[in-house]
């Protein structure tokens, strides 16, 4: 008790360290740890390998795109568990409209060789639709976001399997495959990040999103149509999951119903590691991008150190829990003061 009273200003100073900066420090710290371990165990540098870093970022781009939508949902105080399944569903459906002409075993043999805009539009619409359903369920019926999106998670996965009775969909047109080519997924990820960074920071959409998460009753009394806004936020999360599905399919040049498994949890983890509060009202796209990179760096680092894949999962699980525990303590410290 005495500490608290003697140095309240000091405590304040510590917390005033910008969260952007502290999360960057974590990223750098993780990188340096692997660098040191790399020299010790592998006799080579971890970071001085552009190829490895490119692959790492490529691998997390899809999760990153999802995480940007999920971050917005979490800022409103909600959660979205459906994104991984929506990835699979959109990948399947989009790919079925993107098959190269002349491919006999195409899903729609008469609809092959279509311009890339069609599968793109179809995929985005699928994602958007799933998101709108989530949003309407949550806003209109008042059921918890956890339940609504859990339902969508199971349903969308089912749709993905039912669509071709479990068969993979392959042989995309060259145009469609380009979406996943080279570093394009990374640019899509970063482009989306910039757009929503701006949206959250400078638009009324963003202001309302934070307000609803911080205090939904106060938001309503302040004249915000909370229900309509929630539908928008979940719709955007669905749209981005759809985009992620398209990128996944294009990159793999095939679509399977099992794609995107557990991506929703990686996305939530990236957001939470990046400082988004599960209590709502707080979180930044920048943090989520860094959180995504931290996740990628860990996976890449473990592979580099030839750590068994099973250990990787164990450690990943612990990191996610640790990030949430840290968030809980932050909340407690704050409420104690208030």
């Amino acid at each position: 008790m005495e500490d608290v009273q003697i140095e309240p200003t000091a405590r304040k100073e510590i917390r005033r360290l910008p969260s952007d900066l502290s999360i960057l420090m974590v990223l750098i710290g993780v990188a340096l740890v692997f660098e040191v371990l790399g020299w010790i165990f592998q006799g080579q540098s971890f970071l001085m390998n552009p190829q490895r870093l490119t692959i790492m970022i490529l691998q997390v781009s899809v999760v990153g795109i999802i995480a940007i939508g999920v971050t917005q949902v979490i800022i409103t105080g909600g959660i979205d568990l459906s994104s991984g399944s929506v990835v699979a569903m959109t990948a399947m459906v989009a790919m079925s409209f993107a098959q190269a002409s002349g491919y006999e075993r195409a899903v729609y043999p008469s609809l092959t060789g279509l311009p890339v805009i069609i599968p793109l539009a179809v995929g985005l619409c699928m994602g958007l639709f799933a998101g709108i359903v989530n949003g309407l369920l949550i806003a209109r019926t008042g059921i918890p976001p956890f339940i609504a999106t859990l339902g969508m998670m199971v349903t969308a996965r089912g749709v993905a399997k039912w669509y071709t009775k479990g068969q993979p969909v392959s042989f995309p047109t060259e145009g469609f495959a380009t979406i996943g080519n080279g570093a394009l997924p990374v640019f899509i990820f970063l482009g989306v990040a910039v757009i929503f960074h701006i949206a959250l920071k400078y638009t009324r959409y963003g202001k309302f999103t934070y307000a609803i998460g911080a205090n939904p009753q106060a938001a309503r009394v302040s004249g915000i149509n909370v229900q309509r806004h929630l539908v928008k936020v979940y719709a955007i999360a669905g749209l981005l999951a759809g985009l992620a599905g398209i990128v996944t399919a294009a990159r793999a040049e095939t679509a399977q119903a099992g794609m995107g498994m557990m991506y929703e949890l990686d996305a939530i983890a990236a957001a939470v590691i990046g400082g988004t509060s599960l209590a709502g009202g707080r979180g930044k796209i920048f943090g989520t991008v860094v959180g995504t990179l931290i996740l990628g760096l860990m996976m890449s680092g473990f592979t580099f150190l030839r750590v068994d894949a099973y250990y990787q999962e164990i450690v990943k699980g612990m990191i996610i829990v640790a990030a949430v525990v840290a968030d809980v303590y932050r909340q407690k410290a704050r409420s104690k003061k208030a």
Partner: protein
Amino acid sequence: MISEHTKEAIERVKSQVGDRLLEIDGIRKEFPGVVALDDVRFSLRKGTVHALMGENGAGKSTLMKIIAGIYSPDRGTIRLRGEEVTLHGPLDALERGIAMIHQELALMPFMTVAENIWIRREPLNRFGLVDHLQMARQTQELFDRLNIRIDPLSEVRFLTVAQRQMVEIAKAVSYESDVLIMDEPTSALTETEVDHLFRIIRDLKARGIGIVYITHKMNELFEIADEFSVFRDGHYVGTHASEDVNRDDIIRMMVGREITEMFPKEEAQITDIVMGVDHLTLDGVFHDISFDLRKGEILGLAGLVGSGRSNVAEALFGVTPATSGKIRIDGEEVIIGSPADAMKHGMAFLTEDRKETGCFLPLSILENMQIAMLQDNNVRIGFVDQGTVSRLCDEMREALRVKTPNMEERIENLSGGNQQKVLIARWLLTKPRILILDEPTRGIDVGAKAEIHRLISRLAAQGVAVIMISSELPEILGMSDRILVMHEGHMTGIIDRQEADQVKIMELAAR
């Protein structure tokens, strides 16, 4: 009759000899920014009902929570059956024989009556499992003793409020409690239920149990209480036997303070009717509220907590729209189905509870202040015109003298008074014509209070129509041009400034 009287007389003599169950002395309790109780004393005799009286905010609830072990006092002594004690939480109090019947009843709806009563103390069979048969039997015995007719095996959610209260009382008795605290136990009961409750209370008295009884209702005081203590602004005013006084004496004791704070009421031109309200009703909450509100006028809304004041304000602003009745703005009937609708008609609403419905605690002062003004004139294709908005917010911050190093500070780091100013600023930035203020100065220090009073006065002088709800009579009297008084969901009168005084308002509010 005569023997009854003699018995009572003997009781009284006995109690004067001793028999003090609970004695409290020199209690002080502070909350951040407010002294809730100062040098308060209280004593409860065996087999009596002792009522606590006072206006809202007089400190009754705080005292009650100290007795129940929920708050620990900063200073002062508590003696239980002659022995000085320190209560470590409500469970400790319960085990020492002090039980509280909660105003918001604290039973578990999906468990049976018996399970609720014996929770933590369930009788076990020889396998160490709960013996439900035995538990039901115990409950039935308890109910028989208290003349309560409720099935021990029915789930609590199927019981009426009155029945739940009986269950709580039985639970308290099952702990062998001899100090019972009842916080406005009749507030949700019908007349016959009240009669039943009073029979049980008399029965408990006969067993020697002492009851601390909080009420706003005068007639109950005379019917059930043996003595009463009055509190005012956290101070002890006095204790009397209820047969020695009449209504007027009590009202005088409750409101008897001088109006010490100055209310800087400016002369305002009261002109056209801005808002008319006809027979506004929210089923089961308030009924048939009608009034006119004019430009430049401050209409005070008085009444006890639970009288429906805040519900009327919420209905006017569309938070919980009324079920029937009309609202006219500038003579035209309007439908207000949501706060957004209300804002379109130039209304603004400062809610009663800063934390629950006002502040966005994790957000900055700027974000908190600008949220209501992000309407079409300050937003271009979705993008907030932050330059203009920030400038307007900054001007407002200066005008209201919000004490903060900068606008990026989180609002949760501000004092209550400064938070309140930020919320007022939020609404003033929407340039309202009708301003509804619910407890605008609750829980803030005297300095900020005076500033807010001045501000309200100035706004009225500029032609804003103000509806102000307050539990503080001096504030209502000092600020209002007219005062609408409510009692249990009904309008009991509108008094003009010149004719209004504390006694008149209390009479209408506390019938």
